[in-house]
């Protein structure tokens, strides 16, 4: 199939909401249109793992009724959205991309999902991802890889590959994903859409099937920056069910993103433009930086000297936390239980052996090793110390600049199978994204040109802690420049 029919830009949220409010289109019609498009293209792209059609049409009918009566409508009234399958949605199967959760139907909504619903969004279904969000290509899903709508032989990125591909192919107007080391930003970059890493604590993690709790974030994918800001506004804010969620007030991100960028100081860290950066990606990002300068930004070359230590630090911290978080999958309360078990111990071991895929086992083993007696100081504690150095380096940098701009990933989308035999090569796909993850800062990735082969390139705009509004502003300026 030609990718021309696959790649399609969703309409803007404000436009669709206005249409629903005025009765020009009903939320029900919108949902049906999206389900028809999903039916046509999902067999090729493998984006949706489960459709929540019954709930979606009920929600759409409720929105239509409110619109007909002239009742006030939520900010996302009637907007068709999709949700990464690591977030729970009451009554709809959740797999986290793993066999171990096959058949599990959560009895509750994740907070981010509940907030989308409360805002009037129509949730179409649950979206494919790497198993337990562990991967950079979506090839670790137990339910088969998602394909990149721009080139079906290439990966959509990961771990939220399905969430990115869904927006790129207009199988949803917006989606939720999660980002632990780059899992929103890298796939958004590979699929040519906008993706947001909110500051740690900005969005509640309640109902997020945990991978690495000190790093996991929930964030939106959209076709444009303003819509991403609108979505983040809806899902942000304090939640009693997540003690790490922040009580800070949530700014009007969409309105903030309208502000210009003249006079803003933009930091360009030398370490993100070194060996390993694809020349075509570099060129596209340099065009983006030039566009920011034309828009009145003051470009400042900076150093982030600890950058090269971020991947090793990340893979120790994340796997250590994962090894603890994934201990809960033991065949007792939910998910897969081995039929071969003869006693309690073999039930645990065989259920996990049969239920987990290779990458998940690899990370559990690495994390367990890093935490085990005799190695704790050398690996886990050392990584936590370097994490502080990395985080403090960013805090220092943001004392001198408003935002930091880098490539989101060192290359455009790579081929299916290209890195599956080499875990380390796969990990390096996250080389520019794990730093912000470790530091807890926020970022937005925005499309910024294409390679000669027509593959999208993404620019990462990093903001300080709770500085999403600033990152949105800068990303808007890049978007306006329409680099192609």
């Amino acid at each position, binding site marked *: 199939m030609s990718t021309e029919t696959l790649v399609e830009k969703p309409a803007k949220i404000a436009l669709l909401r206005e249409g629903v409010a005025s009765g020009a289109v009903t939320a029900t019609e919108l949902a049906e249109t999206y389900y028809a498009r999903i039916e046509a293209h999902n067999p090729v792209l493998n984006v949706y793992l489960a459709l929540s059609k019954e709930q979606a049409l009920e929600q759409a009918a409720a929105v239509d009724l409110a619109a007909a009566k002239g009742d006030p409508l939520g900010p996302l009234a009637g907007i068709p959205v999709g949700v990464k399958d690591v977030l729970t949605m009451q009554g709809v199967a959740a797999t986290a991309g793993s066999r171990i959760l096959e058949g599990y139907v959560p*009895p509750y909504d994740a907070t981010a999902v509940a907030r989308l619903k409360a805002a009037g969004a129509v949730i179409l279904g649950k979206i494919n991802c790497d198993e337990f969000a562990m991967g950079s290509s979506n090839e670790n899903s137990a339910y088969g890889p998602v394909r990149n709508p721009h080139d079906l032989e290439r990966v959509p990125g990961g771990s939220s590959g399905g969430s990115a591909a869904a927006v790129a192919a207009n199988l949803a107007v917006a989606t939720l994903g999660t980002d632990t080391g780059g899992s929103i930003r890298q796939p958004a970059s590979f699929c040519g859409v906008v993706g947001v890493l909110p500051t740690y*604590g900005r969005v509640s993690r309640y109902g997020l099937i945990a991978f690495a709790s000190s790093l996991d974030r929930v964030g939106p994918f959209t076709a444009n920056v303003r819509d991403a800001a609108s979505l983040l506004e809806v899902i942000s804010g304090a939640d009693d069910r997540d003690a790490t969620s922040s009580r800070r007030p949530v700014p009007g991100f969409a309105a903030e993103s309208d502000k210009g960028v003249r006079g803003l100081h933009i930091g360009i860290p030398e370490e993100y433009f070194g060996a390993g950066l694809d020349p075509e990606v570099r060129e596209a990002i340099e065009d983006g930086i030039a566009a920011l300068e034309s828009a009145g930004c003051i470009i400042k070359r900076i150093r982030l000297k600890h950058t090269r230590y971020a991947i090793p630090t990340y893979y120790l911290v994340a796997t250590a936390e994962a090894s603890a978080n994934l201990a809960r999958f033991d065949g007792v309360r939910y998910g897969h239980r081995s039929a071969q078990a003869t006693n309690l111990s073999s*039930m645990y071991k065989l259920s996990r052996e049969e239920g987990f895929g*290779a990458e998940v086992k690899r990370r559990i*083993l690495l994390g367990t090793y890093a935490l085990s007696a005799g190695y704790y100081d050398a690996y886990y504690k050392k990584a936590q*110390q370097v994490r502080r150095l990395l985080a403090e380096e960013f805090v220092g940098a943001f004392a001198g600049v408003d935002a930091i701009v880098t490539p989101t990933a060192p290359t455009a989308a790579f081929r299916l199978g290209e890195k599956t035999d080499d875990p380390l090569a796969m990990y390096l796909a996250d080389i520019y994204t794990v730093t912000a993850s470790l530091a807890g800062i926020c970022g937005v990735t925005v499309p910024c040109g294409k390679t000669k082969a027509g593959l999208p390139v993404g620019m990462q705009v990093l903001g300080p802690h709770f500085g999403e509004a600033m990152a949105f502003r800068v990303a808007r300026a890049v978007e306006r420049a329409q680099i192609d």
Partner: protein
Amino acid sequence: MVTIAEVERVAELANLELAEDEKPRMQRDLNAILEYVAQLGELDTTDVEPMAQVNDLLNAGGGAGADAGHGAHLRVDMLRPSLDRARVMAEAPETDGAFFKTPKVIER
């Protein structure tokens, strides 16, 4: 160098039962990754306090809008409804409706 015996020991700690043919692959991958992360040893971190999560960094300085210190927002300790038991137990591989059933814990 991680040996096959160490792979087996770590798998035991993690309650994973690796198939025989998985072990050499895991050994190879763990060694490659550990060799890569060894570069952290280049950094002198003698006086650096380990950072388990970023909240303490966000609260440092306590400027306007800063979150109060960790634990300042504990919820009120009172009885409140929880998830419906029947719906939760419905997800269990084996249950009598009130308890999760497992194979025997103590074998005689």
